[in-house]
């Protein structure tokens, strides 16, 4: 058995196998795997006895449920108005320059993916970004380079 099948089985045991348990199971897989592969979505569909189309439909609806292969660290820059007005574009350029990827891309070593997100709720500390579940606020180009350097060392 693939480890992901085991993970899905455990998640289903933990949350239940009803239709309304789909979301926590999808989140559980994303937490471990960073994204939902076709294989995991089919396995989840089988485990919960749901059509695969419905699992895929749910996964594609929520922006934090990735269904394309993602890097170990997913960087999400808030793209909404306040962050934009407070210099989000400079932050984005700094990251793109440092990691040599564009929005939507993943570094060749599979460590970083760069995405934009809707409002993270940190307008008062804009611009803001997330790296996995960690929030970084009051960003400047300088600050973002420091943060990424730390991650680059960590990996």
């Amino acid at each position, binding site marked *: 058995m693939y480890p992901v099948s085991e993970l899905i089985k455990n998640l289903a045991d933990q949350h239940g196998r009803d239709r309304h348990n789909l979301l926590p199971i999808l989140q559980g897989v994303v937490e471990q795997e960073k994204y939902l592969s*076709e294989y995991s*979505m*089919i396995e989840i*569909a089988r485990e919960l006895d*749901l*059509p*695969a*189309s*419905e*699992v*895929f*439909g749910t996964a*594609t*609806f*929520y*922006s934090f449920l990735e269904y394309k292969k993602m890097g170990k660290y997913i960087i999400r820059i808030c793209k909404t108005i306040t962050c934009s007005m407070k210099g989000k574009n400079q932050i984005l350029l700094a990251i793109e320059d440092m990691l040599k990827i564009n929005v939507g891309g993943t570094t060749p070593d599979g460590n970083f993916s760069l995405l934009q997100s809707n409002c993270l709720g940190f307008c008062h500390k804009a611009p803001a970004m997330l790296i996995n579940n960690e929030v970084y606020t009051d960003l400047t180009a300088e600050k973002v380079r420091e943060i990424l350097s730390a991650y680059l060392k960590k990996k």
Partner: protein
Amino acid sequence: MEMVNLIIDHKPVVVRKGSTVLEAASGIGIDIPTLCYMKLDDMNIENKPGGCRVCVVEVKGRRNLAPACCTEASEGMEISTHTIRVVNARRTVVELILSDHPAECLICAKSGNCDLQNMANHLGIRKIHYQGEHSVYREDTSPAIIREINKCIMCRRCETMCNDVQTIGVLSAVNRGFQAVVSPAFEMNLDHSVCTYCGQCVAVCPTGALTEVDETGAVIRALSDPSKTVIVQTAPAVRAALGEEFGMPAGTLVTGKMVAALRRLGFDYVFDTDFAADLTILEEGTELLNRLSAFMAGDQQVKLPILTSCCPAWVKFFEHHFPELKDIPSTARSPQQMFGSIAKTYFADKIGVKRENLVVVSIMPCLAKKYESSRPEFSVNGNPDVDFALSTRELAHLINLSNIDFKSLQNEDFDAPMGESTGAGVIFGTTGGVIEAAVRTAYEIFTGKQLPRLDFEELRGMDGLRKATIDFNGTPINIGIAHGLGNARKLLEEIQAGTSEFHAIEIMSCPGGCIGGGGQPYHHGDSEILKKRQRAIYSEDQNKTIRKSHENPYITKLYEEFLGAPLSEKSHHLLHTKYFDRS
């Protein structure tokens, strides 16, 4: 029962608690326009995502307009259904939908039958004030159904049919916002999915987003090719619905006019699929009796119940979802395929035409028949037994195209030999009909006695799941009937669990059977139309002189001259098939 009082357009109305504003209004004759909403009364299925907002009404004391289809009527409510504010909102909503809809109405397959077009007309929209982005999505073509998602308005009716009625679950809304589309899992094409091609999604699609593969052009080319002999077969359900396409009331039988029209179109021989239905009964009925006798003699190897196999969507369904049961359905091919196979051997020899020069066209109430005729096991050296399967709607197009005044045609008869059929063949077109036809023949062969009556009312009706026990001269035979794949699934799960009490089960994929097929004139969810078509089918059966398949003289002759006996080696080769595990 708790009731609530409310006022709609100044009229007081009392409704059951839990009713929607839409239901309350229609109860007093106020017609609130709807677009995405769909109600299938008999199946207790409702599609009301509240997505299109066309049915909005004004509720006194409420700031926003409320969608009538999914707003519950409550005590003291005061509703206005057509104030200026409401009408303007409806127009805005439809204009916004149209702003992202291809303006191809002139050449769209759904033109004239399109709910969106009708709505735009109803609201008198002559200009679209909103210019915005257009969604672009690839076109997906399968052997039977075309998806043109650019024309989709996200009403989700197809999803309701696919998921709730048929329990196939191929279609689901995927992505979000402007990118949202209805699609199979992983946005794969239909032909890679477990779609059965039942066509019920096409039957309810309000726009041209889901349509059948149009083969009328290819048929016209064949008809105008002097080197080809073109023959046609017509399925039983077609004659009970074709008239609707020409403005005749639902339930008008147009068998004679249909034959006349097909002759005018230039078909060399006009035959009847009912002939092949009679043949199916002899093959399938004999198979049933063999299995039954072996079972009663104590043979543990024999698998019961026997399931009918005429419906191609149903065949694809069990191949995908219940492959372990693939030995249970009868191995008999469907009437369409039996016809094709006999036409290209027996009949081709009889008229001295080579297989390659004989073109078999079938007129079917069904879209899955297109898929069925394309299955590789039903062709010989790349030449299919059935070349083209047209839907009832496509036949109507052909008739219109050829300037035939359908309503004024004089009745004509089918050609011999493959146009002769019995009443048993006719009732194949409705739920319960195949098994009733089988009972008529199996009873007489099994008991050696004449049937005391021919109408088995206990097998008829419109309930999704029915059962009856027929007394075979002291031997009780339990019969199950399901229409709609969701109901079929229930019977199959019983078989899987070993709790099935049936000896024989009839399954048809479409609600109502073939009369409600995906290729029939659009009935827009009105089940009364299905009941009228059903009555028409039974009345044709009543009026036939011969009503038992084994008494069809041309079938007897076919066995004498060509096949030998039911389940003979030749029959096996030409009239039976095998099923594949597609799980």
